[in-house]
């Protein structure tokens, strides 16, 4: 897990030692992982155990959302697209593609970016909830 050490500042909070920290962050089940943006805002929440590949995909997705929190729009979009490609077999992929569309729209104010994203989701991940969430962008 060199990836975690080099990418994040990691902290482990144990329920027996710090129940107040669980309450503070609204954590009600374990394992729960929170990806926090450098500004201290929660960017992404992962609840429940995941196999390694899915966990890595979710962590990468969280990094993209942390970039978006910091208004690093172009960087976030590239990151999301990379996640969607690299982890295409995981449930993080359609979500990453969705957020890539959000970032593309935020960076351009072009609604066409949202429509393109819906078309891509419909084509690549037609049964995902993220394709359904993007249906509203079709018009």
């Amino acid at each position: 897990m060199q990836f975690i050490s080099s990418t994040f500042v990691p902290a482990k909070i144990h329920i027996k030692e710090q129940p107040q920290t669980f309450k503070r962050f609204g954590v009600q089940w374990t394992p729960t992982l929170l990806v926090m943006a450098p500004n201290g805002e929660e960017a992404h929440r992962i609840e429940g155990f995941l196999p390694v590949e899915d966990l890595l995909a979710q962590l990468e997705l969280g990094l993209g959302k942390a970039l978006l929190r910091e208004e690093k729009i172009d960087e976030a979009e590239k990151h999301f697209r990379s996640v969607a490609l690299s982890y295409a077999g995981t449930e993080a992929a359609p979500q990453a593609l969705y957020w890539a569309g959000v970032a593309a729209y935020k960076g351009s104010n072009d609604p066409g970016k949202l429509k393109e994203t819906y078309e891509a989701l419909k084509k690549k991940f037609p049964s995902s909830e993220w394709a359904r969430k993007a249906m509203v962008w079709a018009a």
Partner: protein
Amino acid sequence: MVALAISWLKDADQALQTAKGQRKAALLDFSAAPQ
């Protein structure tokens, strides 16, 4: 949830402060696993 070889901090605020200083994301792992 993840490998033990990682050097974990044990304080969320310390992690958030360090992350802010280094402009990195923090990862808070809430666990109930046997220690």
